[in-house]
């Protein structure tokens, strides 16, 4: 296991350097000039030239990348073109909001998804199953921005039970908990649906497998068969989905953050792409990529814990 972790960490470094190169080059090749965006439509030619020089954009692109990479290897993510603040500082102000939101929505998706999957597998082809599968299909199909807007209209504007947006209070307070509910549901619904579908098919497969039949034949109680024998085995693919989803949620919080006015990485990334804030986009992509890779590693480790047959050495 330790060899695996070390190997994966070394791979991760090369992977991230590769990502940094691709992001850097593609940002610079994309149309749109950061200087003319900072200057805005009202800037004159001379204004824009001045800004370009200040940002170092007048140097050859490979020189710019080399300088960036050297900085990166020293742990320096650079300085935002727009706000002139350290990219690392900007990222770490927003990361907690995004991680909290991603975790909360994973919790929502697990709370909804796993029971729904199990129930529809156990009561296959019953009305409960049809209901749950239909709901899952809906959950995957409904776009986040629409669901978010509807939840706001009903629970925040009409009933006024929950705040409209913002994550202002710490999450362990009642206010913070309330602020998290709507965004977490909005973001979590899609993955809940995926978990339910995956849970259902995986559970069905296990229920009909030989060892379950043997267990039943031995006279093991149905409850034990389901909860001990089936569930543990059925959870392996579900955990993959949860782990991957967590990665996607980190990068995919953009729309939810936008709708609920949450100051997170997704929103930062969208703003920075819009303003061609190259160092900020590069930093954010690298951070999300690093977390994604890390989460995958954790999923692999959890696998080994659940299923002793899996051995990475």
């Amino acid at each position, binding site marked *: 296991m330790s060899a695996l972790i070390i190997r994966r960490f070394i791979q991760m470094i090369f992977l991230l350097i590769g990502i940094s190169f691709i992001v850097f080059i593609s940002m610079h090749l994309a*149309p749109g000039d950061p200087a*003319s965006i900072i200057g805005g439509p*009202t800037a004159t030619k001379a204004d824009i030239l001045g800004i370009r020089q200040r940002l170092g954009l007048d140097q050859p692109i490979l020189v710019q990348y080399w300088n960036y990479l050297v900085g990166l290897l020293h742990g320096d993510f650079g300085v935002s073109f727009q706000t*002139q603040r350290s990219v690392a500082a900007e990222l770490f*102000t927003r990361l*907690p909001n995004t*991680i909290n939101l991603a975790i909360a929505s994973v919790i929502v998706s697990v709370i909804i998804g796993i029971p729904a999957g199990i129930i529809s597998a156990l009561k296959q082809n019953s009305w409960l199953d049809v209901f749950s599968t239909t709901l899952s299909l809906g959950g995957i199909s409904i776009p986040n921005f629409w669901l978010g*807007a509807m939840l706001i209209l009903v629970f925040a504007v009409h009933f006024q039970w929950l705040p409209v*947006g913002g*994550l202002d209070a710490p999450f362990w307070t009642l206010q913070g908990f309330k602020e998290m509910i709507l965004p977490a549901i909005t973001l979590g619904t899609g993955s809940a649906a995926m978990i339910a579908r995956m849970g259902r098919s995986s559970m069905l497969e296990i229920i009909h497998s030989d060892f379950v039949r043997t267990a039943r034949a031995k006279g093991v109680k149905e409850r034990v068969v389901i909860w001990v024998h089936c569930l543990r085995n059925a959870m392996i693919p579900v955990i993959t989905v949860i782990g991957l989803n967590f990665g996607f949620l980190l990068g995919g919080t953009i729309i939810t953050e936008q709708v609920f006015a949450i100051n997170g990485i997704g929103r930062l990334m969208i703003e920075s792409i819009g303003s061609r804030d190259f160092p900020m986009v590069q930093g954010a992509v690298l951070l999300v990529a690093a977390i994604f890779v890390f989460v995958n590693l954790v999923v692999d480790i959890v696998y080994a814990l659940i299923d002793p047959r899996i051995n990475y050495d």
Partner: protein
Amino acid sequence: MKRIGFSILAFLVLVGIVLTGCSSSGASGGSASSGGSGSSGKAQEMTFAQTSKVVGLSPTMTNDSVSQNVLNQIYETLFTRDPETMEIKPNLAKSYETPDDKTWVIHLNKGIKFSDGTPLNAEAVKYTFDKLRDPKTGAPRASLLSAVDSITTQDDLTVVIKTKKPYGPMLAALSHGNSAIISPTADKKQDLMKKPVGSGPFMLKEWVPGDHVTLVKNPDYWKGPAKLDKVTFKVVPDVNTEISMLQTGQVDFIENVPSEQWDRVQNLKGIKTTKKAGTAVSYLGFNLRREPMNNLEFRKAISYAIDRDAYVKQLNGLGTKSNSIIGPKIFGYDKSAESLGYDYDPEKAKQIIKENGWDGKQIDLLVANTAAYMQMGQIVQDQLKKVGINAKIRTMEWGTFLDVSKQDKFDMTFLGWSNSTADGSELLYPNLGGDNIGASNVVAFNNKKFNTLVDESRYTVDQDVRKEKLKKANELAIKQAPWVVMDHGVVTGAYKDDIEGIDILPTGDWFLYNVSRK
């Protein structure tokens, strides 16, 4: 055993990351929640929501309206505009004189201090302006002072600005938010983008980048302390959410209400709205480098084809129709311009198009993908179709659009100009002046007579002469029609009905000094 040990370690690392994340989120968010508590009506606090983030808080280094909203409360300019008449009046300056047409002698008010205690004197003014125009600074609006030759201090309270040529819009430039005066001591010590120090009625208390900026009143403000104790500027990127927050009391004040939301906002209980003619203009521009856009007859035909009354009507009153390029709220406007131009007349349009064989002509219409421009694009496309012109809309993300629109890469496009100086020269010169082709003059209009008139309006200090020159330049441009003026903007705001004193200037600027809650 070893395997489990590592697994546990990996878990601990993950948990550690999450926990540190959570704790710092608490620290950053904890103090923000108190902002919206003004619903009791007693607390002199207010939360304002805007759809983008504050970029920085140095007037020298920024050029965006969102940061400007905050800067307007922290810093002050030498001159300012009267909210009603738009006339320029002294602010930090007490008076000024022009001994010759290239010299501006500005006398400052006595006893003004920045919030860090530094005196606001001639030295501070010189420092600010020298920094703004120094090419090494790379200031986005260095052009405001491009006409300046030298700045000297005569005594502690007198600044002398010499220009290379007589420069007409000098006072307009000095009342622009980007030429606000900064504290030299603070600027040398710290980065004003993060830690601003000005002489205005409010000071920075807290800033969580991307989320909110909180200001508190400056107790030593030279005109006496402001009525509000605390103001929070919160970022709410989605307009629907913004309006919902206004409705539920999470925010108290919003601006720039989109026209399709105006009815909803006006019908909210406990909310007051305000609207006023603004200085912004939106236009359909012809790329004059290309055929047939360089043909006046073609431009006339397009002008005749577009029903701008119908366009303005669907703006729900948030736009006014005018034939004049220089809008009614801008220095240099003359009512007589309204009778010029080419008003809606589809029959005439069809006739010109037929005569010149442009029937079925395909046009590349470049449209930035913001809601307002997309709307314009669809309406214009539809109206041009009726007269036989086939406009193909090509939408583009804003950042790319800014780049592409500056090059010869489109036939027609939509753009706007906010005109924060409210001076006609500052509209005609950047947008239609021959010097600015390849930059802000996206249509590449280059007319000798026009250039001379605009130059004369800029390089004259006699305001009556300037007005006359601008009037003539405006008339010439209207007749030449490099633009079809779509509408002149309207500034809007919506706020809780217990707030008093909010006054939005035609430029979109507002100042919270006199605002209070009853």
